[in-house]
């Protein structure tokens, strides 16, 4: 994992702990003007909002009834 990838994970993880109304300010600060990084993390946070139980069930389906 390179530095940018590591930052992406760290900022995403931190951002989830920040109240929604404070996230924009948090991202401004954490991404430090790196628009590309900020754009990526924002997209991930939006995806997280609708992630539901995506991948939580094993691909083979439910266990044997």
């Amino acid at each position, binding site marked *: *994992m*390179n530095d940018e990838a590591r930052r992406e994970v760290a900022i995403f993880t931190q951002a989830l702990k920040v109240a929604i109304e404070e996230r924009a300010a948090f991202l401004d600060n954490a991404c430090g003007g790196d628009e590309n990084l900020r754009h990526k993390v924002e997209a*991930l946070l939006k*995806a997280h909002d609708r*992630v539901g139980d995506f991948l939580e069930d094993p*691909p*083979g*389906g*439910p266990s*044997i009834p």
Partner: protein
Amino acid sequence: MKQVEQLCDVMTEPGEPSFVNFENISGVPKVDDLCSASPEAVTMSDATVMLAAIKAGDSKAAEELLVIVYDELRRLAASKLAREAPGQTLQATALVHEAWLRLVGDKNPSFNDREHFFRASAEAMRRILIDRARRKHTRRHGGEYQRVDFAGFDLAAPAPMADDQLLAVDEALDKFAVEHPVQAELVKLRYFAGLTNEEVSKVLGISISTAKNYWNFSRAWLLNEIESE
């Protein structure tokens, strides 16, 4: 893979995904004797040899372990599914733990061995499930469930949506692995091999809370990737 009927019968209890019981199904003769007489004594030593070779730094050993684990998982899956009614499906967690017991055993389980074994299992399960999904994808002709028979591997197919999602996840996972190899490995271990957060954290050498954070990140990343396709 030959007659799966000869193989040991393996069933799992619902709600106990990491537990495997040997059970006699009604109408099926007890096959414990067959289990001990079957040729997996050879396979067991093969797997153990490969694990030792990996420890000794043999770079080819990991690939050879993968082949052994792949064959064993396919064999277990076939034996298990041959006994089930249509509509029922594989349970990766049970298969992987069962394969561990059969190939390595718990006599002398070094922590490192488990780690390598789980990694090989995750990749093997991924290949098995993707192969299955691809084949069904091309053969599908209506109906929510159907039985597909290939190379003696008779599987009850899950709903078509699950296959489409599986193939999409697999494709996205390759991209993910380029940028985030550790997290991609985590997804393989959890999603394809059915390991728990705790097991995953041990295999990857990270804390459980980091494993949970990576899992959140990975799901968001993969969903975003799949939806933007």
